[in-house]
C-alpha cells in the first residue's frame, strides 16, 4: 500500500483499541447511500518506476525549443544551489510557520526576503509573497482603494500597455467588489503612457490609484517620474508593477517622482524560478510604512524571546483571515513560501552586482537580436522608445503563421501581439535573456529570414544554409 505504513497486525490492534470490527465501521455515521463503490474511471496505481517512465516520455515529447518568448515569464540562469537547498525536506515539507519556535528557518528566510525586496523596490515594507504577479496586482489595487484616505473613489487607472493577462486577472478578481478599471491608451509611436492620455481621462476622476508598469508589456520604459507626480498631484496612489531583475538597473519605485510610488508589486519568477509552464511563481507586494496595516498576506517581524534573544514570528495577524474572518484585508492564506525560499537564495547568490550583470546582459542580447531581425525586410521596431529586455517588432507576414513556422524549426520566436492588440497586427514581442547565445540569435534570424522570403514571395535575403 503506497504511503500507508500499517501492517495487518497494526490494523487489528488499532481497530481493537477503537472498539470496532472493521475500518468500514469507522464510516458508519455517513449515510450508507452516500458511500460509493470502486471509482472505475480512475486507473489502477503505478510503481514509481512506471510513473517515472511515463513522465520522462511526456517531458521529452514537448521538446526543448529555443525560447525567445518573455511576456511575463523569463528564461534566466538558476544557480544549482537554489533548488537543491529549497527542496531540502526541512523547507519543502514544512508548513506556514504557526509554531514560530519550531519554524525559525522559514521565518528568518522570509524576513530576509522582505529585506531584499525592500532594498530592490526602495519602499519600506514587503509582505512574504502572494500567488503571482497578476493576482498580486489585484491585491495591490484592492489595497490602494482601501488605503487612499484622501480620495474615496473606486476607480483605478490601468494602462493598456500592462500585460493583457494581468489586466484580465485584475478584472476577474476586483470587479466583484465594485472597482472600476479605467484603461489608459498607449502612445502609438512610443508605446508608452503619455501624460496627455492621462490628462484626457482626468475629468472622469477622481481616481484612487494609477498603475505604472516599468518596463511595460512591450518592454518600453515609461516616464515613471512624470506619471508618479501626475497621480500624486491628484491624490491618487501610485502602484508600480516592476520586474525585479530590471530593478538592478532601473530607478526603484521608492525613488519615482518627487515622493516615490506608494505600492510596488510584480512577478518574482525572474528570481530563480523555472519557466515551468507558468507556475508556481510568486507575487511580491511592497509599500510605504504608513500603509502596512492594509498590506495583505503574511508578514514576518523580528522580535525578542523570553531570554531577550532575537527571533522571528508572523506579525500583524489582525489583518488576516484566520483572525479577522470577514473583515480581513484579503482571503489569502497559503501563499508561495517555497518559491520565496528559492528567490531568497537566488538573490543572495547573485547579489546586487550579479543581478545588474544579468539585467545588462538581457538588455544587450535583446538589442542584438533586434538588430539581427530588423536587418530582414519588413521587420522593424513598433515603437521608438528605449526598452529593457523585450522588443515589439512589426512583421511583414501574419504573426501566427510566422511563429508556427518557426516552432516547426524548434524556435519559439516571441509572443503574438495581434491577439490582444489587433491594431498592431502583424507583430511579435521578442525577448532574449542572458541565456541566449549569439549563435542562437543568428539561427533565429536566418530561419525568420527564410520564412519571410517564402511568405512574401521575394528572393531570400539570407544565403541558404548548406
Amino acid at each position, binding site marked *: 500500500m503506497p504511503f500507508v505504513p500499517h501492517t495487518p497486525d497494526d490494523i487489528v490492534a488499532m481497530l481493537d483499541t477503537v472498539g470496532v470490527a472493521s475500518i468500514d465501521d469507522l464510516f458508519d455515521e455517513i449515510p450508507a447511500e*452516500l458511500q460509493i463503490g470502486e471509482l472505475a474511471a*480512475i486507473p489502477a496505481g503505478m510503481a514509481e518506476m512506471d510513473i517515472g517512465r511515463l513522465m520522462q516520455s*511526456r517531458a521529452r515529447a514537448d521538446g526543448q525549443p529555443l525560447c525567445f518568448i518573455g511576456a511575463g515569464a523569463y528564461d534566466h540562469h538558476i544557480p544549482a544551489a537554489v533548488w537543491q537547498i529549497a527542496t531540502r525536506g526541512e523547507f519543502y515539507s514544512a508548513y506556514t510557520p504557526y509554531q514560530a519556535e519550531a519554524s525559525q528557518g522559514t521565518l528568518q528566510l522570509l524576513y530576509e526576503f522582505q529585506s531584499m525586496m525592500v532594498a530592490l523596490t526602495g519602499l519600506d515594507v514587503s509582505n512574504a509573497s502572494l500567488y503571482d504577479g497578476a493576482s498580486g496586482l489585484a491585491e495591490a489595487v484592492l489595497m490602494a482603494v482601501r488605503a487612499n484616505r484622501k480620495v474615496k473613489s473606486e476607480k483605478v487607472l490601468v494602462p493598456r500597455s500592462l500585460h493583457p493577462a494581468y489586466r484580465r486577472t485584475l478584472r476577474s478578481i476586483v470587479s466583484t467588489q465594485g472597482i472600476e478599471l479605467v484603461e489608459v491608451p498607449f502612445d502609438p509611436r512610443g508605446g508608452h503612457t503619455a501624460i496627455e492620455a492621462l490628462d484626457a481621462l482626468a475629468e472622469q476622476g477622481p481616481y484612487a490609484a494609477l498603475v505604472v508598469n516599468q518596463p511595460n508589456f512591450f518592454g518600453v520604459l515609461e516616464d515613471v517620474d512624470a506619471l508618479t507626480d501626475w497621480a500624486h498631484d491628484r491624490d491618487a496612489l501610485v502602484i508600480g508593477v516592476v520586474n525585479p531583475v530590471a530593478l538592478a538597473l532601473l530607478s526603484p519605485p521608492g525613488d519615482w517622482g518627487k515622493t516615490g510610488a506608494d505600492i510596488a508589486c510584480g512577478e518574482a519568477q525572474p528570481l530563480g524560478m523555472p519557466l515551468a509552464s507558468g507556475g508556481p511563481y510568486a507575487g511580491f507586494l511592497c509599500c510605504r510604512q504608513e500603509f*502596512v496595516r492594509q498590506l495583505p498576506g503574511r508578514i514576518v517581524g523580528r522580535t525578542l*524571546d523570553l531570554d531577550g534573544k532575537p527571533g522571528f*514570528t508572523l*506579525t500583524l495577524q489582525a489583518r488576516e483571515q484566520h483572525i479577522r474572518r470577514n473583515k480581513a484585508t484579503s482571503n489569502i492564506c497559503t501563499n508561495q513560501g517555497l518559491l520565496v525560499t528559492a528567490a531568497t537564495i537566488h538573490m543572495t547568490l547573485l547579489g546586487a552586482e550579479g543581478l545588474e550583470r544579468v539585467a545588462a546582459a538581457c538588455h544587450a542580447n535583446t538589442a542584438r537580436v533586434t538588430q539581427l531581425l530588423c536587418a530582414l525586410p519588413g521587420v522593424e521596431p513598433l515603437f521608438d522608445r528605449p526598452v529593457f529586455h523585450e522588443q515589439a517588432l512589426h512583421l511583414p507576414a501574419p504573426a501566427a503563421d510566422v511563429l508556427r513556422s518557426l*516552432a516547426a524549426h524548434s524556435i519559439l520566436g516571441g509572443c503574438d501581439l495581434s491577439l490582444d492588440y489587433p491594431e498592431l497586427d502583424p507583430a511579435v514581442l521578442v525577448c532574449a535573456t542572458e541565456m541566449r547565445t549569439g549563435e542562437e540569435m543568428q539561427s533565429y534570424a536566418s530561419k525568420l529570414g527564410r520564412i519571410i522570403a517564402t511568405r512574401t514571395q521575394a528572393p531570400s535575403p539570407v544565403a541558404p544554409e548548406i
Partner: protein
Amino acid sequence: MLIHDRSRPGRRAAAQAPLAMPEVTDIPAALRRRSRPALPEVSELQAVRHYTRLSQKNFSIDTHFYPLGSCTMKYNPRACNTLAMLPGFLARHPLAPESHSQGFMACLYELQEMLKEVTGMHAVSLAPAAGAQGELAGVAMIRAYHLARGDLARTEILVPDAAHGTNPASAVMCGFKVREIPTGPDGDVDLAALEQAVGPRTAGIMLTNPSTVGVFDRNIQAIAARVHAAGGLLYYDGANLNAILGKVRPGDMGFDVIHMNLHKTFSTPHGGGGPGAGPVGVSARLESYLPVPLVAFDGEEYRWLAEHERPESIGRLTAFGGNMGILLRAYIYARLLGREGMRRVSEFATLNANYLMARLKAAGFDAAYPQRRASHEFIITLKREAKELDVNAMDFAKRLLDYGYHAPTTYFPLLVPECLLIEPTESESKEDLDGFVAAMIAIREEAQTNPELVKTAPHTMPVRRLDDVRAARQLDLAWQPQGQQQGST
C-alpha cells in the same frame, strides 16, 4: 545571524552571473538606479551554508510528526518532486504553442478527469493557485449564476461558525454579506438556526464536510435539500477531502461547487506556506462559469480553452493559469495511488485519527465530541487541565515541540475552548501515534509536578517563546543598512 550580517563589500558568488557586464548606453540617466540595492555580498559557500543551517531550524514532515489539524501534513513522495522537475517540464514556457505542449497537457487533462471522478462533479478547472483562491472562484461562480438569472436579491452567504477564516473572507471578496450559522452540541450544523437564516436572500452556503470539528455532518442531505429549495447553492470547502477520498463524493452529497486543496489531499508540498493548488469542481449548471484556462481533448489533440472559448467564465486568476508544477506533482501522486490507493488514504487517515482519539481518551484527555466518530481529525479540549492545573492548550503545544512533535492546530475552531485539533494523516505509523500519546501523558504529569516547565516551554528550540506583542508594536519587518532606523507605527 542574518545573511546581511555575513555580507562584506566586494565579495560575491562570481560563477553565478554573466562574466561580462555590457555597458548600458541607451537608457536615460533619469530612469536608471542611482545606487545599488543593499543585497547581501557573500560567497557561494556562505550562501549554501547559511540556508542549509536555516533549514535545520525547521520542523517538517520529513523530520517530525506534524499533526496540524486541517492542514493534512502527510508524506510528500519524493518522486512527485523529482518527476515534476524533469528538464522538459521546467523549461516549458507558459506561452509555448500547443504543438510543443501535448505531453504536459495530457497530464493536466488526466488530472482534471480524475478529480471529476473522485469528487463526483461534472467539470473541473485546475486554475486556482490555492484553496482560498478556489473559494474566491467558487463564490464568484455562485454570484455569476444568480446574476445570469437576474436573481439579484441573493446577497448573503451562510457560513457555519466552525468554518475556516478563508470562507467568510472569500465571500466578502465577492461582494457578499456573511451570515454565520451556529454549530449544534453534537458538532453538526444547527438545523433550526439554518432554517431561520435561509431564504430569498441566500446565495449559497459554504460547508466543510467533515467539518473542522472533525465530524461528518449526518444531516448533509437535509441541508442540501433545504438550501436548494430556497434557491441557494452549496459550496464545499475541500480542506478535509482527505477524510472521504474514494469513499464519499461531494457531488453525491448535493454540492454545486467545490474546491480541493491539492497540497493537502494530493500531497503536494506545503513549502513553508505554499505553493498550494485549489482546483474547483462544479455541477452542470455552473460549468460555463469555470475559471480559465481549461484543457480540452478531442481524442487526438489537447487544446487550451481560455477567455475566447469560454465567454461566460469568471475569468483568469493568475497570469498563466495556475500552479502548473504543483498540478504535475498532484498528477504523479494520483497515478501512484490509483483508485485503490485513494480509498486507502481516507480509510487509514480515519483509522489513525480514531485510534489516536481512543488512546488519548483512555489516557484521560477530553475529546470535544466523545460520542462521535472522528473523521480524519478530532479535537481534544484542555479546558479541564487549564482550570485545574493552570496549563493551557498553548503550553501543551509548546511543550510538545520539546518532545519532538509539531504541535496540533491550537485555538481553532474558535467554538471549542482550549482546543487542540489533531490530524495524524494516513502516512504515520502506529509507533509514531503511540509516541505522541506518551508525550501528551508526560506533559500532563509535568503540568502536575512542575507546571513552570510546561508554561515556559519550549526549552530546546533555537529560540524560546517570542514576544508577539513587541513584534506587532515595535515593527521590525526588514533589515536596514547601518545608519538607517526603521520607525515604528
